[in-house]
């Protein structure tokens, strides 16, 4: 065992708060879910000599992972450079700057891979130019899913045996990691990933994405497809509607990825009343007061205010067009296996 490095000043903020949402449905509401993997990755990087005292952390993020890094950097004395884009909420931007992060906003997409790729290109320039710089790389860093043992521990402590875990998929870390740990003890655990049409994560053709934190146009190495029993895709209007429902009916003011997961978990739990379900809510709603929580902004969203699907439509392949809420029985297969079968049919 190498030296055990500690960066735990904000450890109290890492775990979720559990809220009963129904007879057998529990919401795991995070302050900032990314705080745990960020801390874990940094601790491990220091242990392995990849991050040195006073070093520079560089990352591409327009959301909560950037905030988590900024909070940790200020605690433990690192310089932080964040590459972001238009999706960065202006209040969050201001917070990052006050925390001492150097924030670069990229506004023109790369010829291939769009804005996400343009941000990565800029990031690589920094990494090349700054000596001793360290890139956490949450999408591919294996320490990201590895950090979720603590969440599995917490969930078992609070609800005991779990039958089903539902959560949004972005970097892949939380769902792949937590499912893996839970399955060491509950091999039959039913894991449901929530994605959005146009995201390549579970085989949709790449398209324009309007939801930060859900899906992506680049496939992260941390999405371990064979952990998923079932995948759902929700369109933006459905996601926002669910986010408001979660707030209205349970008082939980969360971000849209939480809303998406809630809609799926509520549906699955209703159809499996004897199963104990936990749904992950990764962040709070404050970043979205000028978007998801603003009726004027919502009025500009395609398909708002509905009518919306009350139940998912089961699709034959994840590559099909999905105008609205769809589900597919993934069956713990790899992406290749699923796509090969989709191609054959």
């Amino acid at each position: 065992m190498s030296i055990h490095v500690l960066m735990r000043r904000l450890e109290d903020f890492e775990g979720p708060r559990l809220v009963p949402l129904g007879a057998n449905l529990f919401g795991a509401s995070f302050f900032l879910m990314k705080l745990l993997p960020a801390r874990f990755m940094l601790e491990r990087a220091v242990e392995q000599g990849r991050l040195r005292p006073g070093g520079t952390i560089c990352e591409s993020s327009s959301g909560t992972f950037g905030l988590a890094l900024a909070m940790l950097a200020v605690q433990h004395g690192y310089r932080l450079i964040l590459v972001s884009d238009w999706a960065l909420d202006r209040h969050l931007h201001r917070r990052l700057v006050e925390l001492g992060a150097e924030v670069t906003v990229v506004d023109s997409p790369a010829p291939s891979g769009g804005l996400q790729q343009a941000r990565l290109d800029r990031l690589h320039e920094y990494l090349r130019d700054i000596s001793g710089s360290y890139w956490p790389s949450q999408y591919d860093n294996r320490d990201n899913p590895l950090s979720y043992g603590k969440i599995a521990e917490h969930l078992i402590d609070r609800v005991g045996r779990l039958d089903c875990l539902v959560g949004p998929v972005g970097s892949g870390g939380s769902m792949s990691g937590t499912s893996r740990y839970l399955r060491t003890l509950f091999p039959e655990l039913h894991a449901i990933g929530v994605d959005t049409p146009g995201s390549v994560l579970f085989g949709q053709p790449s398209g324009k994405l309007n939801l930060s934190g859900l899906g992506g146009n680049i496939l992260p190495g941390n999405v371990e497809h064979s952990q998923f029993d079932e995948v759902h895709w929700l369109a933006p209007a459905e996601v926002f509607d669910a986010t408001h429902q979660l707030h209205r009916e349970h008082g939980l003011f969360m971000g849209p990825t939480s809303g998406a997961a809630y809609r799926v978990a509520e549906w699955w739990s209703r159809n499996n009343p004897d199963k104990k379900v936990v749904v992950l809510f990764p962040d709070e709603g404050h970043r979205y007061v000028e978007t998801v929580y603003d009726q004027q902004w919502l009025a500009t969203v395609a398909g708002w205010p509905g009518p919306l699907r009350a139940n998912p439509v089961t699709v034959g392949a994840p590559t099909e067009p999905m105008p609205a809420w769809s589900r597919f029985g993934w069956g713990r297969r790899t992406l290749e296996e699923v796509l090969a079968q989709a191609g054959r049919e």
Partner: protein
Amino acid sequence: MLDGAGFGVAVGHHGELVQGLFEDDGARLRRALVSLPCRQLKSRATFIASDGGGIRVLPGSCDKARRAAELTIARFGPPGTGGNLAIDSNIPVGRGMGSSTADVLASIQAVLDWLEIEPASDEVMRIAVSAETACDSTLFKQQAVLFAHRDGIVMEAFRRPLPPIHLISIETTPEVTIDTLEYRPARYDALEIETFRPLRSLLRTAIKHADVRMLGRVATASARINERFLPKPGLDEIETVGSRFDAIGIQVAHSGTVVGLMFDALDRDASVNINGAMDALRHSGFEAAIFRH
């Protein structure tokens, strides 16, 4: 004071329900375990004091027991006390079944019995760890505990004792014995260390609710992790037999050779299932014995 004899008894175990690396206060990692005590396995110690002359032990191989008696006298007894320590144990040696810890604890108890004192459990455990560098958690009968066996510290006390479990004990390598102290501790990787977190919380929940099935899950997971360090030949086959006869899990001696197929002692069908599993295991060539709670 120097007359008379003192007696002590301590039980052996059938390996551990769990053994691993767990975070303590201040995120300090400690090796810790939950032993699975076996009351059929006992070490009995008799101590007869003499005036000076050091402590002699029979059989002479029980050197750690002698050392434990010395340490107990050094801590609590009149200076210069010597004596004869006799150990009588039915615990197999070199199987990871706690023969050595049981000899040590029985010897400490024998000296304390002779001294007519009853120190707190943490003092007894400190002596045991000094005598042996590590000590199992068999002493803790009233509450199950997660015990840091090399530090002699209770990391966590649970709300209840372990629920009753029947075992089929399987000797996986009858020809091999293991010297627990010489055996190099497992070097767990990050995934394993993080996996011990959910194991610990399910352990806590399972004991609190006396849920032996969940306890079986925990033990099985711990046994699986241990395969990378001290694999048990035939473990998969044993587990397959278990699943046919409604076993609740498997557990192993993490620094030994035995495997236990676990059954819920409160299940009405346990006896029938145990007999069925015994036949199946023997048929497959395993050396197996039944340990009832």
